């Protein structure tokens, strides 16, 4: 089992979600985060004082999938999240030790 963490631009959330639904992914968790990489922040002026806003708003999508489908999932996410401009984000793939479904107590790949 693999955990996919995708950091994407906020307005790409809907396209990514639809694309994942189309390949059969039926659940995910999202959080609103801020971050920067090569995409620099921007300058703002508040009452005459200039300041840098370094952190850009992003959406982080987290989902756990079977090891076999991981490649298809990250390709799908990438295609939907791509805009071609700096700040498109990153996808991380991590190994998962175990998964448990709270309602039934199932564990392992059935619980995904």
């Amino acid at each position: 089992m693999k955990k996919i963490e995708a950091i994407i631009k906020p307005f790409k959330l809907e396209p990514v979600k639809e694309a994942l639904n189309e390949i059969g992914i039926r659940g995910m968790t999202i959080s609103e985060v801020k971050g920067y990489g090569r995409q620099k922040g921007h300058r703002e002026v508040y009452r005459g004082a200039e300041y840098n806003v370094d952190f850009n708003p992003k959406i982080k999508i987290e989902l756990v999938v079977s090891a076999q489908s991981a490649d298809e999932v990250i390709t799908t996410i990438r295609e939907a999240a791509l805009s071609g401009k700096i700040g498109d984000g990153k996808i991380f793939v991590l190994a998962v030790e175990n998964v448990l479904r709270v309602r039934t107590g199932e564990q392992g790949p059935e619980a995904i």
Partner: protein
Amino acid sequence: MKKIPAAKRKTVLTGLLLLAATVPCGPVLAGEASPGPDLPATLINLSYALDTFYFLICGALVMWMAAGFAMLEAGLVRGKNTVEILTKNVALYAIACLMYLLVGYNIMYGDGVSSVLPSLRFFLGPDNSVEAVLKSGGKTYYSAMADFFFQVVFVATAMSIVSGAVAERMKLWTFLAFAVIMTGFIYPVEGYWKWGGGFLDAMGFLDFAGSGVVHLCGASAALAGVLILGPRKGKYGPDGRVKAIPGCNLPLATLGTFILWLGWFGFNGGSELKISDITEANAVSMVFVNTNTAAAGGLVAALLLSRLWFGKADLTMALNGALAGLVAITAEPLTPTPVVATLVGVIGGLLVVPAIVFIDKARIDDPVGAISVHGVVGTWGVLVAAFTNPDGSLLTQLAGVGTIFAWTFSTSILAWLFLRAVMGIRVSEEEELEGVDIAECGLEAYPEFSRE
């Protein structure tokens, strides 16, 4: 008291006026000569009621400005300090009302010991009796209680100017203690010197609705507080850098500004003190128009200036610009033409933007620009009255500015120092970082939003 429906009131009033118009001017009752203005008792009754009603409505509008200040300030501070500033605003309004009732009103409007020394009396006296009013032939033309109500909301306005300047780092209860001193004593004394008939009034100092008496006074107390309090942690860098601390809710700040704008019609309009004849009705209308157009001029000027200077249309500067226009016209909203009033407001807007920037550069931390709007532009408003009112003199206006500032600033400094010694004036560094909402109020303003 049973309420008479508006339509019926209008019909009765029109009927009575038509009836009164058929009565010849001159001796009214058979064989009796009257000394003063010869009005039938009914007209005196109606005129008194109308002027009293007008006072009460204007007072209610000025009371509503307290909501404006509360929203404006709540919008310009950070989320973690919002509950505390709201608490300050509601409490200072209440304290102002109580202190003014207790002692402030009579200090300001009592007979006075001399033109410098006001007299001391507590609570309010009785209202005008019907006989006394009729006997005066209409010279006593509004309720004494209405006069108190109209004046009490002004002292609340002056006090609320201070709350924005000391936001985010002052102890709540210290601020409220200062409010007791300011509304019970500091403001009434300088108000006595002008509106109570004291020496400023006697020398011809002009201040129609309070650019000096209210706004400059509030700003002077605020400046004293801010100097002793110090800036917010991290606001100023060692190399002279100014760190921006953006407000958390600009919709609230905008709403607050519009509320203040609306309330100002009562603030300036009511200060004409009378509406019940043609001259006065026209005067009030002129005051409304000039008040509105000065605000508009101030807003546009500040917005344009911020665009030219910073490259962006800074909403907070536009809001301060509107308020600057209002403060600027407040010393004399009657005599200028609307075009001149607009210019007065425009210059107010052009002054407030650099004032905000340079006061920041001087490392005086004023989160809402209160000192700039009410102090710098309040001074401009008082001085320009020398030019817009033919009875004005620049020297007298300067004397007024100097007196009000010197008195308020020095007594405030003493008060703040005293309070600092007795109960402390500033929250601890930890409390400031955590947010005064938690430290002073035990509440969060936006508990469901994640905080910085």
